[in-house]
């Protein structure tokens, strides 16, 4: 047992550290470090910078043009990006659909779709949830009917994150109503510019439009956009879930935000308030414990000796921690977290914020926004079902 990264891993970290700090535009990291509003251009701009370096598909194997990094290297890359204040990589293309295309797509589909994902040129969205299918995803109803060399798609997806920017969308659609619900689902790639696609942003409780409803009205999708076999889509979706692994704990971002919480507490005169400070200390312990759990999973992947089945725990704990730091940041600002001035969350805003510190403007917004973390990606209650299964059978 050894807590230290190997000299090779450390050298890798140093390389990534230097490169990210040299290439991440300071106006973008300023926004991330202060929870200011990111534009589509901010997100895609960083994606293109990474794409040029060949690091946007940082989890990709070499045969598909990826860097072929180990699990530990991927973790270190994510950590260096998070700590530097890089926007989170929008995962739907490079992290989610790409591995499915690599594993189950045809060579033609791989040639057609992977380059645009790797370069960050094409914005992908995810079409999973539906109004009637959340935790019970397999009950989804969006219908795709084969007509000659195309599918006709009708139905509705929802909670489509950043779908307002989406150009392509990977969807779970129902191609059969025979047998178990899981066996009638297919994995279909869809051009969002197709006639019959309507995207309607959903305003969330923080006032932002981070998710969307997507409606399909007789949308024609060429049959060549089907991944793998018809009615096998559920298997591909499960493969994709297995691909998420340790990233879901988001421990690196929580480390960065813990630092920010400490800065806010200092500025608000709470650093020497023991009641508040102890709450930060407790969160710090939670984050160290989560990090140790993440490192255990990574080490197990690295050695291949003792596989750990604790991914559900990582999601539960990681999301709870994200909510906690946001809560403490908001509480630190006292009533100055309460003024709702949307423009104050834009970089460079010059208006007067009540009390004079516009840095407090996004705190409540972030708190409200992060309530999503225990709901998305399989709600924490669903995760507990999964964990209980491993303990109780």
């Amino acid at each position, binding site marked *: *047992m*050894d*807590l*230290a*990264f*190997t000299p090779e*891993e450390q050298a890798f970290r140093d390389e990534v550290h230097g490169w990210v700090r040299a290439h991440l535009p300071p106006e973008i990291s300023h926004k991330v470090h202060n929870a200011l509003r990111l534009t589509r251009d901010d997100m895609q701009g960083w994606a293109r910078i990474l794409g040029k370096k060949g690091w946007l598909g940082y989890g990709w194997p070499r045969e598909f043009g990826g860097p072929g990094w180990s699990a*530990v290297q991927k973790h270190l890359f994510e950590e260096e990006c998070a700590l530097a204040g890089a926007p989170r990589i929008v995962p739907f293309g490079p992290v989610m659909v790409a591995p499915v295309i690599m594993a189950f797509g045809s060579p033609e589909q791989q040639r057609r779709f992977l380059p645009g994902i790797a370069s960050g040129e094409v914005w992908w969205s995810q079409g999973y949830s539906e109004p009637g299918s959340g935790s019970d995803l397999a009950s989804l109803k969006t219908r795709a009917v084969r007509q000659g060399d195309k599918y006709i798609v009708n139905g509705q997806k929802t909670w489509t994150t950043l779908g307002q920017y989406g150009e392509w969308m990977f969807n779970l659609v129902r191609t059969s109503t025979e047998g178990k619900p899981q066996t009638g689902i297919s994995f279909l790639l869809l051009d969002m510019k197709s006639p019959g696609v309507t995207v309607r942003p959903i305003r969330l409780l923080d006032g932002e439009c981070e998710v969307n409803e997507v409606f399909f009205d007789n949308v024609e999708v060429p049959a060549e956009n089907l991944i793998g076999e018809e009615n096998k889509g559920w298997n591909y979706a499960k493969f994709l879930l297995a691909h998420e692994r340790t990233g879901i704990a988001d421990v690196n971002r929580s*480390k*960065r935000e*813990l*630092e920010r919480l*400490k800065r806010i507490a*200092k500025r608000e005169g709470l*650093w020497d308030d*023991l009641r508040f*400070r*102890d709450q*930060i*200390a*407790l969160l*710090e*312990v939670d*984050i*160290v*414990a*989560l*990090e*140790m*759990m993440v*490192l*255990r999973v*990574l*080490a*197990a992947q*690295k*050695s291949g*000796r*003792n596989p750990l089945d*604790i991914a*559900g*725990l990582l999601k*539960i*704990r990681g999301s709870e921690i994200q909510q906690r730091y946001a809560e403490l940041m908001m509480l630190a600002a006292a009533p100055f977290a309460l003024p709702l001035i949307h423009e104050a969350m834009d970089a460079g805003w010059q208006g007067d914020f009540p009390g004079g510190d516009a840095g407090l403007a996004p705190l409540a917004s972030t708190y409200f926004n992060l309530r999503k973390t225990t709901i998305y990606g399989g709600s924490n*209650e669903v*995760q*507990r*079902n999964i*964990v*209980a299964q*491993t*303990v*109780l*059978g």
Partner: protein
Amino acid sequence: MDFDFSDDQEQLRDAVRRWVDKAYGFERRRAIVAGGGFDRAAYGELAGLGLTALTVPEAHGGLGQGAVDAMVAMEELGRGIVLEPLAQTFIATGVLARCAADAVQAAWLPRIASGAALVVLAQQERKARYRLDVCESKAASAQVGYALTAHKNIVIAGDQADAWLVPAQLGGAIALFLVEKGASGVKTQGYGLQDGGRAAELQLTDAPATLVTQDGLAALELAQDIGIAASCAYAVGVMDQTVRLTADYLNQRRQFGVPIASFQALRHRMADMKMQLELARSMSYYASLKLGAPAQERRQALSRAKVQLGQSMRFVGQQSVQLHGGIGVTDEYIGSHYFKTLTQLEMTWGDTLHHLGEVSSRMQETAGVFA
């Protein structure tokens, strides 16, 4: 970064686990508790397994193994809630090997390694709570060595030990001494503890003592940190077994015509127990791996670990009793003994609030949370 155990460590684990399963069943433990909470024969069996020699340097007849090996042994002893205090042996070994003069090491470490001598730390005083720097015991120079006057409380296996490590004031600072059983002016009075183990009051009146180190506070901090790491590992074993017992019970107990393991309220509680167990295991690794770090870093890390373990132990222990229903609060069921052990462990080497205070006061303004 590597969290695998070596082949030797796996063999050590197997050997200790086999001994616990075969030789330290609930009936024997019950008899040991009834007999006062400490069995020298059982301690001898630990020595026979090589555990008392595990961390003693090879030069002094030990096996020269490290903190992770000690952790593995403690986890397995925890699984069987073994009462004989091997943690005290790791503490005495670590403190003597790191802080004592060669002659003191040569006199005691080989006997500790063989199991011939049980040496325990006697630091608790009535007014100290969990603070190490509160000490009213007094040491004075004598013709040969020193003379100690002290009243120490809750000394683990205190009336069974062959020597005590005793902190006392000397010239305005705390120094650490060794006092031998049979010395003049030594009185002990033993009693049982909530977990079934044994402790004693130790009263010294001008008792002859050997100096271990002038820098007693640093030695006490080291002792405490070794104790925390050992307790964390032991607690992981206790909790691992507690989760197992509880899962078995939920699968076997039927109400309303079905196993109660089918009820989601109970399944989610079980998931939360598993969460606390794995967080605790992660921080137990952290504790043992940080034991060799520089003192400041070590102190901070070990307090973090104890904060996590304290919370985990309380949750797992309390929920295990709850999920067992009535049987969980009976003495005849082994689960209640696991719960009492966990409760006592939280209050050993500083409870959760105490160590939260330590973490809080040592907290860096930057993130500073990197493993």
